[in-house]
């Protein structure tokens, strides 16, 4: 137990508890309007999606454009289960979450085994293609309710459940990253040839990252479905995958805390800037381009390092979990 209670973990646990207490206070006191309360679940769902996508994009260094596809598969699997199984909620819902995650993970294996032989642009396009295929098939199936959507899903998701699941996701992904398997995944990102030369099984570790990311995307889908009460195939299109990608990129690739903060901002943004809602897509586009150019620019890297060393004082040089600068 001593190892679990180091300084860093205690800070994390305390801050998670404080955030939860703060949310509960804001909700129960009525400071948070109903409208903003309704955004708490979507924020949590986006955090799960972003943290899991960060595993493939940020830590493994492979761009996948089909995250919404995994979310959709998980959502339909989990929601169909609760629609058809008539069990008490406290039994039904955890099972639905597991089913959603597992079905998405199975799709992760089915898609990952062939697709991960490809790299870079081809992998991105193939995952995009798979996402679109899933969407077409879901639209044409009867059991999923087709284009009209799957209706009558119980609205079980509330902010407490989503908070707990998001927390579990964050802990799991961060545990993975700090284990030997996570180091192997990061080594593939940094230099695949060197990684092979020290005996890392590339295919296995790529698939591992891909499947775990798919699992959590599926879980997020189940939460999403049980929040809205209806699932439509058009929700899980290419644009949803891009939105999650924008969150990951804005928060910093390979930065879990960044993903959490950025998921919160991006989910609130259209609501806070009501008048700017027409400009949402434009803002996403500019964010993507600007972040990529800035992260590549050596001057900006220097600037960031200066800020970081000022903030951190003594432990300046190159330490920490900061953003990944990916080089060619």
């Amino acid at each position, binding site marked *: 137990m001593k190892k679990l209670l180091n300084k860093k973990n205690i800070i994390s646990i305390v801050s998670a508890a404080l955030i939860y207490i703060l949310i509960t206070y804001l909700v129960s006191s009525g400071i948070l309007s109903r409208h903003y309360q309704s955004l708490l679940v979507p924020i949590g769902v986006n955090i799960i999606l972003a943290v899991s996508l960060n595993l493939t994009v940020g830590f493994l260094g492979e761009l996948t454009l089909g995250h919404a596809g995994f979310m959709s598969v998980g959502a339909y699997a989990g929601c169909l289960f609760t629609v058809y199984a008539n069990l008490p909620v406290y039994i039904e819902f955890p099972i639905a979450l597991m089913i959603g995650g597992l079905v998405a993970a199975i799709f992760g294996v089915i898609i990952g085994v062939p697709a991960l*032989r490809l790299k870079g642009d081809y992998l991105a396009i*193939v995952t995009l293609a798979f996402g679109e295929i899933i969407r*077409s098939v879901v639209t044409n199936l009867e059991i999923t309710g087709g284009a009209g959507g799957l209706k009558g899903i119980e609205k079980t998701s509330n902010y407490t459940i989503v908070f707990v699941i998001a927390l579990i996701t964050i802990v799991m992904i961060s545990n993975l990253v700090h284990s030997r398997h996570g180091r192997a995944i990061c080594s593939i990102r940094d230099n695949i040839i060197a990684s092979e030369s020290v005996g890392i099984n590339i295919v296995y570790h790529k698939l591992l990252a891909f499947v775990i990311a798919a699992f959590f995307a599926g879980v997020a889908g189940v939460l999403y479905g049980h929040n809205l009460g209806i699932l439509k195939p058009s929700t899980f299109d290419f644009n949803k995958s891009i939105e999650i990608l924008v969150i990951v990129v804005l928060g910093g690739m390979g930065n879990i805390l960044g993903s959490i903060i950025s998921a919160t901002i991006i989910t609130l943004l259209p609501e806070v800037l009501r008048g700017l809602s027409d400009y949402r897509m434009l803002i996403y586009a500019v964010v993507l*381009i600007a972040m990529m150019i800035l992260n590549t620019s050596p001057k900006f890297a220097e600037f960031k390092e200066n800020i970081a060393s000022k903030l951190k004082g003594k432990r300046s040089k190159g330490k920490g979990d900061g953003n990944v600068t990916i080089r060619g």
Partner: protein
Amino acid sequence: MGFIQQLINGLELGNIYALMALGYTMVYGIAKMLNFAHGDIIMVGAYTLSLVMTNVGMPPIIAILASVVVCSILGVVIEKIAYKPLRNASPLTVLITAIGVSYFLQSVALLIFGSNKRKVESAITMQGISIGSLELTGVSVVTLGVTLIIMIGLTLFIKKTKLGKAMLAVSEDKGAAQLMGINVNQTISITFAIGSALAAIAGVLFVSSYGFVGPYTGALPGIKAFVAAVLGGIGSIPGAMLGGILLGIIESLSKAYISTNLADAIVFGVLIIVLLVKPSGLLGKVRMDKV
């Protein structure tokens, strides 16, 4: 409709894909990047055509020229602003930027023109041809001709001209090309200009046969054109032509005999199978990584 007519429909569609794929393959082959925004440049070309013809009231030929000029300039500007700073960045960075550019063009079009599709008069006034019970529209005859001319023209341009050879050199090795006195930045700019000009022509022909343009008009055809380019072997000019036509035929036959809704899924399925079985495409070359 008979099978032969379906094949002809597929050929019409396939020619447009081929034309788009030519631009894709050229930029990918030389600048070594997936220009995700290629489809959206097609959309800009289509809007330009419509504006110049309908709002300014110019004859089609002027409108076509205008859209070629606008798209070429746009291509070069995009390259200068968004892609050039990333010359030495990882493929992941470049790809995310290209997606950003695609999104940017779509959202700007959405802000200017709104989400409603705009009706476009055909820029091609040629009469259709009918042979027996089979019909070929004027647009598809023109498209076939234009695609063939461009394919042959591009091949000759790259093989015979100094600039074309410079492009080949840049595609092989940017550093070495620079040392040989080739202006790499200028060569890549010209590549983007030509690629975007091709996108403009594709846009003109696409709306001429489709009749409408909206902010997302280019997105799906753009991705399909990439599929066509990959199918034929990315970087290969005849490959783009072959891939485009095959893709058009597959799509049109799927729509006729399997399901309209699943046609896109089938097209993407074909891409996945091709990439897994023959990642270099039908006419592509195999490359080896150097350690």
